């Protein structure tokens, strides 16, 4: 087997094997489990880094074999795949570190970290999938491996949320499978690489193709948290903070958004989708979801719930970018895939820190927390400003590129949506920042543990600080060669100029 075929498989196996080893380890061997976790995460990061460099150089990493007659299992690393793989490899490492600190002294850690690794393996599979079938395989594996994480606490509320989660996502999966099978019957096994499958297709098929598009998007839209199938997301908040972080920033919602990107660009092709008139309605839906999520976030008192509605809103930025016909809009959507991940994971890490250290879950209990936890609060503040789109942070780059893309596509109304959404973001996020820094403390904070000079456990503190640094740097150095923006431009150059 050549190195080109080996690396994608290794990238998958690194976390798959980690999962197996962790399941096999006894519950009490915490140190060994942490070691395995961290080694696997570092190994994967290394593999992904090598592959990214290779893809940049134009090396082809792919492997495929036939599973059933007419159905291939296919892994392939293109620039788009590396965007998602890079995001998940990097954030997995940080989330693992965070989760080790977060779940200290709690039961069932073996189960948790086992499924945690499985979940990341699925994400890697989704990123590297070379055709719709392989994509679907890992997409469903993701559903099944995240369920135990969502219900990890085992409370009545958690189980209820888990039931809801599984109904939504499996339902979405069934719809997606229907679309894939239909398309397969019509056009056979379509690899993501060869775009423009339908460019010269029989106009008589266009009606069917339109329907299939709707079915596919409906199936994928569930995980992407698009209105009206977003209902599982706010409920899934009962999960432990690292799970929420992973769910919102990397794994689940991103899998949906990434699938939509694949369908629009690599199955239908942007020109064909545009010609069928499919982009415009999707743009409207994305725009509505952006505003809807923000408006709902305004009234949420629970911090994580507010963040959840914010996710619903922010993920649709990616989809909105995809629907802006033209290369600049695409860059905006793709770059937000990364930017949203970095910003949102920071916010969830911080929310987890408040919960773990101060026992605070509600927005109105955060008064004066800035003085008690300055580093966490500074990270939270910067992530919030990034979400609003304040320069020079990550969100600004997204907003600028999306806005320019909208104008290039002659969709001026998108600017209004962007501005309105920024204002709404400010309206539901800035009051929290105000409470952190300017409100006086109401009651003394619980003084249960001593962390030395740090405000909380180092395991919990460093991951958000690292992601905060990242969300500053990706904006501040957006023009440099390996920034997310430059990588998204590379993807688009390769996509539009085959």
């Amino acid at each position, binding site marked *: 087997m050549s190195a080109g075929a080996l690396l994608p498989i290794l990238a998958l196996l690194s976390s798959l094997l980690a999962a197996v080893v962790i399941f096999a380890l006894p519950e009490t061997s915490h140190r060994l489990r942490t070691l395995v976790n961290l080694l696997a995460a570092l190994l994967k990061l290394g593999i992904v880094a090598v592959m990214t460099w290779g893809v940049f150089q134009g090396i082809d990493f792919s492997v495929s074999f036939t599973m059933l007659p007419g159905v291939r299992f296919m892994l392939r690393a293109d620039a788009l795949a590396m965007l998602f793989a890079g995001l998940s490899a990097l954030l997995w490492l940080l989330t693992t570190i965070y989760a080790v600190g977060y779940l200290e002294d709690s039961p069932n850690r073996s189960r948790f970290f086992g499924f945690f690794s499985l979940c990341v393996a699925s994400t890697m599979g989704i990123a590297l999938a070379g055709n719709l079938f392989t994509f679907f395989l890992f997409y469903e594996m993701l559903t099944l491996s995240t369920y135990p994480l969502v219900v990890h606490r085992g409370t009545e509320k958690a189980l209820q949320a888990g039931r809801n989660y599984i109904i939504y996502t499996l339902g979405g999966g069934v719809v997606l499978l229907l679309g894939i099978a239909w398309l397969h019957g019509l056009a056979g096994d379509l690899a993501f690489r060869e775009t423009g499958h339908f460019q010269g297709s029989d106009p008589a098929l266009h009606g069917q193709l339109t329907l299939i598009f709707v079915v596919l998007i409906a199936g994928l839209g569930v995980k992407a948290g698009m209105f009206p199938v977003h209902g599982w997301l706010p409920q899934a908040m009962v999960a432990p903070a690292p799970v929420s972080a992973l769910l919102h920033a990397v794994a689940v919602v991103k899998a949906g958004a990434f699938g939509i990107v694949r369908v629009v660009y690599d199955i239908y092709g942007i020109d064909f989708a545009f010609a069928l008139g499919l982009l415009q309605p999707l743009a409207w839906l994305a725009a509505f979801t952006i505003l809807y999520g923000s408006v709902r976030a305004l009234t949420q008192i629970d911090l994580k719930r507010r963040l959840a509605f914010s996710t619903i809103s922010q993920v649709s930025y990616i989809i909105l970018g995809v629907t802006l016909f033209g290369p600049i809009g695409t860059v905006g959507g793709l770059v937000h895939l990364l930017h949203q991940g970095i910003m949102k994971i920071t916010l969830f890490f911080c929310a987890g820190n408040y919960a773990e250290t101060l026992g605070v879950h509600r927005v109105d209990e955060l008064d004066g927390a800035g003085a008690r936890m*300055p*580093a966490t609060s500074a990270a939270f503040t910067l992530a919030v*400003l990034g979400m609003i789109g*304040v*320069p*020079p942070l990550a969100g*600004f*780059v997204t*907003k*600028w590129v999306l*806005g*320019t893309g909208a*104008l*290039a596509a002659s969709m001026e109304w998108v*600017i209004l949506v962007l*501005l309105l959404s*920024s*204002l709404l973001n*400010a309206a539901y996020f*800035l009051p929290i920042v105000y409470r952190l*820094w*300017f409100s*006086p403390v109401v009651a003394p904070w619980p003084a249960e543990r001593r962390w030395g000079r740090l405000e909380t456990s180092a395991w919990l503190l460093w991951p958000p600080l690292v992601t905060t640094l990242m969300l500053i740097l990706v*904006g*501040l*150095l*957006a*023009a*440099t060669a390996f920034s997310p923006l430059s990588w998204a431009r590379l993807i688009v150059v390769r996509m539009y100029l085959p």
Partner: protein
Amino acid sequence: MNGSPPLVLVAVSVLLPLLYPLLATRRGWHRALRGALPLLPVPALLLAFQSAAPWTLELPWLLLGSTWMLDELRRSFLLLTALLWGVAGLYAVGYLGAQHVRRFCVFWGLTLSGNLGLVLAADIASFYAFFTLMTFAAYGLIVHVGSGRARFAGRVYLVMALCGEMAMLAGFLLAASTGDSLLLKDLNVGIAGSANSELMTALFIVGFGVKAGLPLLHFWLPLAHPVAPTPASAVLSGTMVKAGLLGWLLTLPVGEAGWFAWGQFLMLMGFAGALGAAVFGVRQRDPKTVLAWSSISQMGLLTVLAGATLAVPGQVSGLLPVIGVFVLHHGLAKGCLFLAVGLVLPAHRLLRWVVWLLLALPGLSLLGVPLTSGQFAKGVMKDALLGQPGLPLYGLLPLLLQATTLATLVLLVRYGWLLWQQLERGNIRATRWLGWMLAVLCSTVVFWYLPTVTAVMSA
């Protein structure tokens, strides 16, 4: 003829106040933090004095690819910003109590960094970044006291500022897309050549108008100034509102033909602000509120000048230095007046009279009394305006300018009366005195030696 940029000095000028808040991470350092306040703008001051020739600095790795520059217009804003933040910083050392010193210093440094950076920025992304940094960080200064009034003022300020920023962003997006350039200097060509030029102009006028206190966008000013700590009010009124003016000059199609109507509109709004502010300001009971209205009034005059620049495209090179001089004059004088509100009267009778004399000087300067910076600034302004028969409202200009002097007088008399009633005897820290006296020195003496002023005098 471009000089080479003094790289290290530029970097230190912006980064020193930007990174200085990191000192706040150490709990025991609040005294050092406070003591460093007046030093923060020193590199920027050196920068403004040092480089004689205009320079451009390319930073292709920064943001979306950045360019910074210093030309004559920017130099006048840089001089004002560095000088006023310096003396206000010194004043703040003697002003700050024990409460929230670290928090104040953090926001002070960030606001200053934004204010300095926006002056140097020549591309959209860095200009917008610094402008926003200043906007957000200034909120922390305004609500510093934490009273109900302060929080309300902060809320009004932030909501209005955010709306302004959105208008600005929309304008930038539209203009950058049509002009296909991220440089501020290409904006006016982009705007002039676009089908949406009217919309863009309106967006920029509104967006920066919030900062500049344009009538109907001014509501935050009289609320925010009285509640902010006195040194913060001084820089807010002295330099930060002028960032709005700079924004106009950098974004509006100044120097392009065909903007007569917009220029006329700005001039009308300017006079409305200059005169209307007196009507509202004279009824206030807090000297800082009166000064806030006076700032709206004086910014009205600057708005008139900006409008004139827009209306008469051929006269830009003549009007911009005048604006520079006026900005310096008003910024320094207004800074003194604000800082004076936090003074006390010395016990010794003679000293008391000295204080009152020094208190009066910047006020007289605003009125344009002979031998003051105001006489010079108003003089060049009148010459520049009345020498342009093509200007909108030309026939009314002498009358309107007379009326604005009356408006200034009314507000200053009110301010003086309130101060007379409110200043008490007592003790304050020496640094507070020193900061205020240095401010007066800048307004009365140093002013005449500033490069912008000497250039206009010799012309």
